[in-house]
């Protein structure tokens, strides 16, 4: 984008700035402006606001962003108008980016409600938490729409920087800070790889615009171009790190365990969603003509993630670590859809991400409650006898876990079905079989938690852990997640139609 921009002004008369169609970027703008205003307000009114204002405010902003998506969706769905590529082709506004943005906003709403209860219990300061969630969603939304690799990089960084801080948010817990620092160092390392990959791609194709990369590659296939291949490889590494695919997964369990539980849920749901959105856009669309080259790597990542995620989750005793490894296995499932490199695979991946968002946020909301004051009770022992102490909570947790295991009539089943179907239609039989086998291994781990909740009794008769309180915020999150998991499991039609429509496209249309 910049090349044409600046070359056009090469004569040096006056700088032509691209016209920004503000209304088309409404969701991102609402998120960013909302977060900025929120930060200022929080600083100005420090101590004079009730703690829950942050959560409600973030929910309102994210809700407004979702509302602003609706007219845009209708506009880009209209065949007469179609998708837009705003800001001189840097940010695409298509149903794919809108779908992902809506998903991220929903994740923000649920996570901020959970966080509200968490902050209350831990006695932490409020509003920054929710505002960082908004910033992260804005970054993720930019990633989903990025039609330029540099815009993609900026989106990743906005998202990541917000999440680094969120992970280290609990100032009194060493493990939270340790988790934030680890995530930051490794994330920065991975970002550098990604950026270097972008630089090599730029060197090979002369552009960072995905649209022009695509048309450049369509014209000539440079299989022997070391620069391009290096760029492709390093970008793949960067994205694989963000989605937590094996062997770039080692940060996941440590960071998931140490981060505040609501943040962990957000990381599992939103960060993964945004990273996969970027991956789908860059690889499935931008580098479509090189699919034969990168597909085996993605397939290998998928198999490694499925196997390691499932096997390692089984031997854990800390529930948060179990769920971290299970999130690695889930990433393996989504990679199945990426590997298919087809419209069907993309739709299946999006459906899976939507399903996992609901399941993960619900699961970690329960984890937040069970973690108790100090957010430390995450061993399997903490779940023993939960079925007797808090039957409702245990039932919800069982539902989320069984859904993650892929039990029919839950959304998790349909999600797994979708990606496996996509893999088979792409003739990836080995992948499909590995996915099904590892699903069985993972099931063992989920059932371990369920069994602990219902069948195992806590050793001490008197419950010294005291009564678990379920604050209203967490209740809202769990309730919504339960409804989503069950209702969409029985009537998946609407969501399926949305995800089927939400395919990423690269267009040059400016759409003013």
């Amino acid at each position, binding site marked *: 984008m910049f090349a044409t921009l600046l070359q056009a002004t090469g004569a040096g008369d006056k700088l032509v700035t691209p016209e920004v169609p503000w209304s088309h970027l409404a969701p991102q703008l609402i998120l960013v402006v909302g977060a900025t205003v929120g930060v200022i307000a929080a600083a100005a009114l420090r101590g004079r606001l009730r703690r829950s204002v942050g959560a409600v405010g973030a929910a309102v902003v994210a809700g407004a962003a979702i509302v602003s998506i609706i007219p845009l969706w209708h506009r880009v769905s209209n065949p007469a108008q179609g998708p837009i590529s705003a800001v001189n082709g840097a940010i695409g506004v298509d149903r794919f980016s809108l779908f992902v943005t809506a998903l991220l906003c929903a994740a923000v709403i649920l996570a901020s409600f959970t966080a509200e209860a968490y902050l209350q219990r831990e006695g932490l300061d409020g509003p920054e938490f929710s505002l960082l969630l908004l910033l992260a969603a804005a970054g993720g939304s930019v990633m989903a729409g990025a039609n330029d690799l540099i815009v993609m990089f900026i989106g990743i960084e906005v998202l990541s920087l917000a999440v680094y801080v969120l992970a280290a948010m609990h100032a009194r817990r060493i493990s939270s800070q340790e988790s934030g*620092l*680890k995530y930051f*160092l*490794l994330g920065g*390392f*991975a970002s550098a*790889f990604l950026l270097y990959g972008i630089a090599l791609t730029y060197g090979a194709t002369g552009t960072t615009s995905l649209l022009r990369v695509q048309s450049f590659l369509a014209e000539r296939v440079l*299989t*022997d171009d*070391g620069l391009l*291949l*290096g760029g*492709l*490889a*390093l970008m*793949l*590494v960067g994205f*694989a*790190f963000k989605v937590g695919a094996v*062997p*770039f997964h*080692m*940060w996941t369990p*440590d960071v998931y365990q140490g981060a505040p539980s609501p943040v962990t849920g957000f990381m599992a749901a939103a960060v993964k969603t945004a990273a996969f959105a970027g991956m789908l856009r860059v690889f499935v669309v931008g580098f479509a003509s090189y699919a034969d*080259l990168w597909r*085996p*790597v993605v397939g290998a990542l998928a198999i490694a993630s499925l196997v*390691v995620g499932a*096997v*390692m989750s*089984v*031997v854990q005793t800390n529930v948060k670590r179990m769920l971290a490894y299970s999130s690695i296995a889930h990433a393996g499932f989504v990679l199945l859809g990426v590997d298919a490199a087809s419209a069907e695979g993309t739709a299946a991946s999006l459906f899976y991400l939507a399903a996992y968002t609901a399941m993960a946020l619900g699961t970690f909301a329960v984890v937040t409650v069970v973690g108790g004051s100090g957010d430390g009770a995450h061993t399997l022992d903490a779940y023993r006898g939960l079925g007797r102490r808090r039957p409702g909570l245990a039932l919800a947790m069982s539902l989320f876990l069984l859904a993650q295991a892929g*039990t*029919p*009539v839950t959304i998790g089943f*349909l999600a797994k*079905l979708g990606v496996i*179907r996509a893999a*088979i*239609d792409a003739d990836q039989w080995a992948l499909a079989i590995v996915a*099904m086998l590892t699903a*069985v291994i993972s*099931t*063992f781990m989920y*059932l371990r938690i369920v*069994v602990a909740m*219902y*069948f*195992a*009794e806590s050793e001490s008769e008197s419950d010294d852990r005291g009564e678990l309180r379920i604050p209203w915020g967490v209740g809202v999150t769990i309730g919504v997640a339960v409804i989503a998991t069950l209702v969409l499991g*029985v009537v*998946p*039609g609407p969501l*399926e*139609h949305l995800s*089927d429509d939400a395919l990423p496209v690269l267009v040059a249309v400016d759409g003013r």
Partner: protein
Amino acid sequence: MSALVWLIPALPLAGFVALVVGGRRLGDPWAGWLATAAVGGSFLVVLGVFADLVGRGAEARSIHQELFTWIPAGSFQASMGLLADPLSITMCLFVTGVGSLIHLYAIGYMHGDEKFSKFFTYLNLFIFSMLMLVLGDNLLLTFLGWEGVGACSYFLISFWHTDPANASAGKKAFVTNRVGDWGFMVATFLVWTSVGSIGYLDIANAAHHGEIAAVTATAIAVLFFVAATGKSAQLPLFVWLPDAMAGPTPVSALIHAATMVTSGVYLLVRLNPILHAAGWANDLIAWVGVATALVAATVAVTQNDIKKVLAYSTVSQLGYLFLAVGTGNYVAAIFHMVTHAFFKALLFLGSGSVILGMAHEQDMRRYGNLRKYMPITAGTFIIGWLAIAGVPPFSGFWSKDEILAGAYAHNKVMLALGLITALLTAFYMSRQVFMTFFGPERWREADAVATGDGDHADAHDSAHDSAHDDHAHHLTPDHTPSESPWVMTLPLVVLGALAIVGGALNLPFTDSTKVLEHWLEPVVGVHELGVEGATLVALAAIAVVLGLVGIGLAGAVYLARRIPASTVERPEFGWGLWIDRGYAAFMGGPGRALFDAISRFDKAVIDGAVDGVANAVGAAGAVLRRTQTGRVRNSAIGLATGAVAVLVYFVVRMSF
């Protein structure tokens, strides 16, 4: 009536919802009556649908009711639909019929329990799940019911879960069934890929047109059989059923004798079009079935817990059912399933009545002469005993005989094993009856168990003998047993009557008396037994003689005391328990170790390799520091190694 098929599962579901909402307020006994009414109402609807089906021609006896499309889009379609045909309605008849009797019985049995309403909540949910399993028109819906009945079973096994033994029994059932579920899921997937649908009607169509390759059909059949071995407690997954007796006795009767454990058989019969093409899978099913029948029958001889005997007996009878399925004798399988539901439910409920009368003592060595105190229980129990022992004209004789005839036509060794099992069955059931209802009143002897001659048997089941109901045992020498209230004896009498006449469903005399066979023909097709007149009579005679020998032997040992019990209650008969102990050892040892080893491999080898690369990188100066590699850098090294690997892959692709 045909439009009302949906009411069949809807009524128990409504009962379940009502009990969840207001069960506690209704309390004891009204919650029980509500649950019984829900199941009873469902039974009446089934009767209506049944009458409707009977009124139709053989070809039109199938009501397919699609409620709504569940998974609409794409190549994978599944509907929420119900399929009422002769097979599913037969199942529904005895599920709701026997189910409502057991509900009624439970009102008396559970009286005074603090979780009375909760118990009936689970029971109604169970009936609903079981009906979904049976009525579902596709594999997914059946799987839903399959999981549902499983879940209810675990909840009910560990219903009194203050007792750790009960909780662990529930866990065992849970884990064992997961193995089977795996088979179900993979098999469903195979069906979908080969047929393109998971609806039973489509599957049957495809199979009739030979669209399923023999290899695929065999694989599907074997996998579904794996599922069935879990749910229906066959070798080698039968270990959970005896432990499941930790649950309340009505649960044992309903779930672990009459209905749920037969769902594996139902599944295979439902999929008989696939089995027809499945080649050796049928032999596998038959052999596993007959082996299970024999092993479980031998174990039953050594048990002293009244419910444990019945539990192993159930495993053994289920083995018969699989023998029938494997020999293609589907009518006999359903026939024996129905009669077994009658007499085994009767026996379990009778044992519950005995247990209640004997202050929750379950050890048969402390019973004796109870016919004097509990005449109705004793009378009905004896009917059940004669039925299971295969004494004509009781129902068990007719149905068991058909299975044996099928085995005769198939393979003579199977027949021999089946006959030995029949002898053992008669023996251990007689032993139970004689020890319980006849002989001296042993609980009046102070040290009955210690002086008894069954001490060696303790060695086998000491670990499993904790399946007593969770009530304190107060069986004192001056205890006077008393008959149970009418809500408990009425079901006994009804079931007793059914156990006598149940054989009339399918009498082998002439073609017109084979009612069940013609009724099921639209679903399972025509099956010629290949055994005629004289042979059939001879087989029946042999079976009867063996049954009588078994009874006579038991009489000699336990009634007349001519032979010391220790000569027959051989420790070797406990061989089936070795499997159980083997699992415990495996899961505690090698199984756990396997997962640990994989995890160690990941930690040691992968991390080790990573460290190795790190050394190469850091040869410039970090050699000394490598022993202190921390986690952050470790992860970074992993990342870098992965990046190098991906790069190398591309380079390799580029240069070739």
